[in-house]
């Protein structure tokens, strides 16, 4: 049974429509990630779920019941949830008092509060900071206080808004570790927003892509990353190669897509008939580069010139002009072995199954 259900949810700030007719159902114990670009409405969505805002239109159901309007009843429901806001706002109190305040507000006994706070501070790695004023902490430490402050309440639903945005890698890793521990151990329902795709993929059971106030696609990580529903999702989830084309033949599910005005055809797996206007999406990591043409089981071969090489940590992002622009991701080591640099001739290959076809002109 779903714990949280949103039906036809719309919200506007003044004349700006932030959420547009959103439907979503989140099950008990599920970890759901909302991904989307900045300004897509992720924070507003979380605020509405936490009952901080009343949506302009639509219904919110919590545990099967429609959320009531009275402040007292809303407070009761809100006390079953906890929301870690994006910018950690710690109170100008000691770390201990910061973490204890939610329990105090719920009228928990003093010795129980002490036990719980100590335990949770240990979990987030801040056990030595009890008496420090929370305002003197670094950003990462403050975010961990904010997380501890929410976790100590043992909420049924934990809402996290960009839990690791702008944090140092050590703090991010610690927070991700705590989140996944809590999700496993306590079976806490979690809804997190992130613009970090890999984080969503790593932590969430299910992902929803929110673009411009619309929940464009929901599904598991593979659905979203390998079968984006439309061009917007494809662009957002990092399918850098979104090529406009028309299907010219379809034989037994293998289609040939003519790309743009060129006479270049890409082979892909799809059921669309000939004549269909489509986008061919290829993830950059699914493209293999070789110095010269050599046969493999892949159906697509393109000879081209390297136009740009950028290093992204252990990976190199290679832009190739092969009549159309292709972006490939290879390891830095193989980029060096292939001596990839501007002007170098390479052969790019990818499988027909590595191409995802989406229909053009839908969901726009």
């Amino acid at each position, binding site marked *: 049974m779903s714990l949280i259900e949103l039906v036809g949810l719309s919200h506007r700030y003044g004349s700006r429509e932030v959420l547009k007719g959103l439907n979503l159902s989140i099950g008990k114990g599920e970890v759901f990630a909302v991904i989307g670009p900045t300004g897509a409405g992720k924070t507003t969505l979380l605020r509405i779920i936490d009952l901080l805002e009343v949506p302009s239109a639509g219904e919110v159901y919590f545990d099967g019941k429609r959320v009531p309007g009275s402040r007292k009843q809303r407070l009761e429901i*809100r006390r079953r949830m906890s929301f870690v806001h994006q910018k950690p706002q710690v*109170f*100008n109190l000691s770390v201990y008092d910061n973490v204890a305040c939610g329990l105090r507000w719920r009228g928990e006994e003093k010795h129980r509060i002490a036990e719980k706070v100590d335990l949770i501070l240990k979990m987030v790695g801040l056990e030595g900071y009890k008496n420090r004023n929370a305002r003197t902490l670094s950003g990462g430490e403050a975010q961990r206080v904010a997380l501890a402050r929410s976790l100590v309440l043992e909420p049924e639903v934990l809402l996290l808004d960009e839990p690791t945005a702008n944090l140092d890698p050590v703090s991010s890793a610690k927070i991700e570790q705590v989140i996944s521990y809590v999700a496993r151990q306590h079976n806490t329902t979690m809804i997190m927003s992130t613009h970090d795709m890999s984080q969503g993929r790593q932590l969430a059971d299910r992902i929803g892509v929110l673009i411009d106030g619309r929940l464009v696609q929901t599904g598991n990580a593979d659905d979203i990353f390998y079968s984006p529903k439309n061009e917007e999702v494809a662009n957002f989830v990092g399918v850098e190669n979104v090529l406009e084309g028309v299907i010219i033949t379809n034989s037994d599910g293998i289609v040939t897509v003519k790309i743009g005005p060129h006479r270049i055809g890409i082979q892909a797996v799809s059921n669309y008939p000939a004549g269909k206007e489509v986008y061919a999406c290829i993830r950059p990591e699914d493209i293999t580069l070789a110095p010269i043409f050599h046969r493999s089981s892949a159906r697509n071969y393109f000879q081209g010139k390297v136009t740009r090489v950028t290093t992204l940590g252990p990976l190199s992002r290679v832009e190739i002009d092969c009549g159309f622009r292709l972006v490939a991701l290879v390891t830095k080591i193989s980029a060096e072995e292939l001596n990839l640099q501007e002007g170098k001739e390479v052969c790019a290959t990818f499988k027909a199954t590595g191409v995802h076809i989406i229909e053009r002109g839908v969901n726009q």
Partner: protein
Amino acid sequence: MTEIWDGLIKAIELIISLDPEVMEIAGRSLRISGTACLLASLICLPLGSLIHFHQFRGKRVLINIIQALFSLPSVIIGLFVFVLFSRAGPLGELGILFTPIAMIIGQMILITPILLGLTISALSGVAKEIVDTATSLGASDFQITLLVLREARYAVVAAVILGFGRAISEVGCALMVGGNLKGFTRVMTTAISLETSKGELELSLALGIILLLLALIVNIALYRLQQR
């Protein structure tokens, strides 16, 4: 010039020897203004929170009026309280004119705009996100108000200290509604005004020094609060 020096030396003697009259007057000043400040705080802190946390028509205008009243002259309040409690006035029956109670009421009215205005601005200084965070953590409206007052505690305490400073240093209202009755409603400012006009400089100077010392203590306290 020698007169002032002599007066100053005698004044310091009066303070060091803890002269009973000086101590009595200073003590009364502290009691009356302290009570006025405490009572006004008890009203203004919740009222200021109420104004801050609620949206209503004319809120901006109300705050502007409160701020304009910061510089309300104390003689005008003296006049108002005098008329209110004089024999023929609407509250004349109470018979509290020329008593410390009337002085306390006068000073409360005097510092109410300061306390209200500064409480509101202290609360406005607390980020909106603090309120959101507290709400998310399950605080009720009352618990949120307490937390925000606590977040703004330095600014709120500064407001109270400022209010106290204004109350203890005013003379117009204390004189008009207290009457400067020796041993009953004579406070530092009214005593200074009377003794000076009588030419009794040493007592005036002694009280003036104590008043200045108090002002200094208040200022140091404020400074230390703001340093935190």
